[in-house]
């Protein structure tokens, strides 16, 4: 069963790392790399991606003539996707355990950040009419 594990951020990117020591930034990055490597080895990783910071995000709509209408204005309270893992696992509990590992990524002083990771099942077919 495939799940997507999403790290969302309210902050505009860099501010999230503001005030960290260099070794803390490096430890955080190394943790993420290590996690992806382990999931690769166990065969559970389908993909893992990081996105550019939210200030680069664009909202695109179809204009009347089909040309894109692009703006960068989002509600203040919006959560942005910072990155995600897609995993293929046997049970939802395994997906939650992997998410918990992501959540424990270290922050300032090496303390676990305890970020909330949003976990959603991926659909293999079209959405049901009455969920």
């Amino acid at each position, binding site marked *: 069963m495939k799940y997507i594990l999403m*790290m969302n*951020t309210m*902050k*505009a*990117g*860099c501010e*999230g*790392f*503001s*005030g*960290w*020591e*260099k070794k*803390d*930034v*490096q430890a*955080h*990055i*190394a943790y993420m*790399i290590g996690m992806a*490597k382990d999931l*690769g080895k166990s065969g559970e990783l389908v993909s893992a991606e*990081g996105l*550019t*910071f939210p*200030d*680069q995000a664009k909202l695109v709509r179809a204009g009347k003539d089909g040309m894109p209408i692009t703006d960068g204005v989002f509600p203040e309270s919006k959560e942005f996707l*910072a990155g995600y893992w897609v995993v293929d696992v046997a049970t939802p509990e395994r997906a939650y355990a992997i998410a918990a590992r992501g959540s424990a*990524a270290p*922050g*300032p002083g090496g303390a676990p*950040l305890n*970020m909330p990771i949003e976990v959603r099942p991926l659909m293999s077919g079209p959405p049901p009419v009455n969920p």
Partner: protein
Amino acid sequence: MTTRPLEPAIEHLLRELTPQVLGSVVRRFRDFAAAEDAVQEASLAAATQWPRDGLPENPRAWLTQVAFRRVTDHIRSESARRRRESEAAFEMEQVAPAAAAASESDEDDTLILLFMCCHPALTPASAIALTLRAVGGLTTAEIAHAFLVPEATMAQRISRAKQSIKDSDIPFQLPTSGERSQRLRAVLHVLYLIFNEGYTSSAGPQLRRADLSVEAVRLTRIVQQRQPNDTEVAGLLALMLLTDARRLARTGEGGELIPLAQQDRTLWDRQQIAEGVALLSATLPKGAVGPYQLQAAIAAVHDEAATAEATDWPQILALYNLLKGMSDNPMVALNRAIAEAMVHGATKGLELLDALKDDPRIAEHHRVDAVRAHLLELAGDENGAVKHYQAAAGKTGSLPERNYLLAQAARLSSKLPATNRKGSV
């Protein structure tokens, strides 16, 4: 399709022969797309049969015969529906699939293929994919893997590129002397782009993108051998060798970027450096100096410095001043600003950067912020440096670069008085 890894010798032989065979087939049948498909099939057949049955006596003739047969089969089945073409099909049958001896036109054929695959009618991504396939002999799966797209997507990209060539009616011949230099520049640009794709990639068990740099060097060598008097071809090859020589030192154990000034120079490939320098020394005196040669010369000055401190920056600045005169590339201006700072001080370098603020091609590029941050740090403005490292981190599309820039921002900001130390991602 299961692919067992081929014996290196067979794989090497196929990679060398397939573009030559493709040349023969295109010459004979004048249909690039059909020829390319046929040669691919012949190559797959070889990959299956040769390990099992042993190498044929004349591998090139073997491939050519199989490819010829595939194309005639294709034409025959097409024209079976059309009465008018049946005569032509009958004619095709009469052609004995003769052992095609290696001809003098071999060398030209590979070059012609390169010119075709790098034709300006193709987008860069299409030209890169098609070149790696038709001239590089890489499989679609290998190319897809290198670019991290599904195999079916890469197959479509290549197929559409072949169709563009067909639609543009690009003939299978060397460009006219009037077009030659523009077309050659297009080829060199595509080869440079391929080299760039292999420049660095994050550590990962599946990624072998460094092979793309090796492939770019190989293809550029092929061009250089066939155009030994072209100084920019030699310049590009030298640039690649001198840059690739530093590859092992460029990436740390965790995949992190290590800038030139901090690299362990014992990890540099001295043989490649020697080859690049020798090539450059033989080329510069010919007098037709161009941007690739100058970039190579700059790389050579770096590569010949025993330590970062020993780098001959005045020489590098002089080379950038020459380069500025012949290249409109705003990246050149950026790099020149760094050289200026190293020779005349950070303030002078920053002045040069300011001039770039109005250049729309580069004003929003992350490297401007990154260079500014570096120069501000040199100038002692750590606050400013932090801001610009962070701005650069926000603009780059490269994960290894973002990680590097965030680490620099953190390194400097932790030296500053703590204003707001509470952070979460």
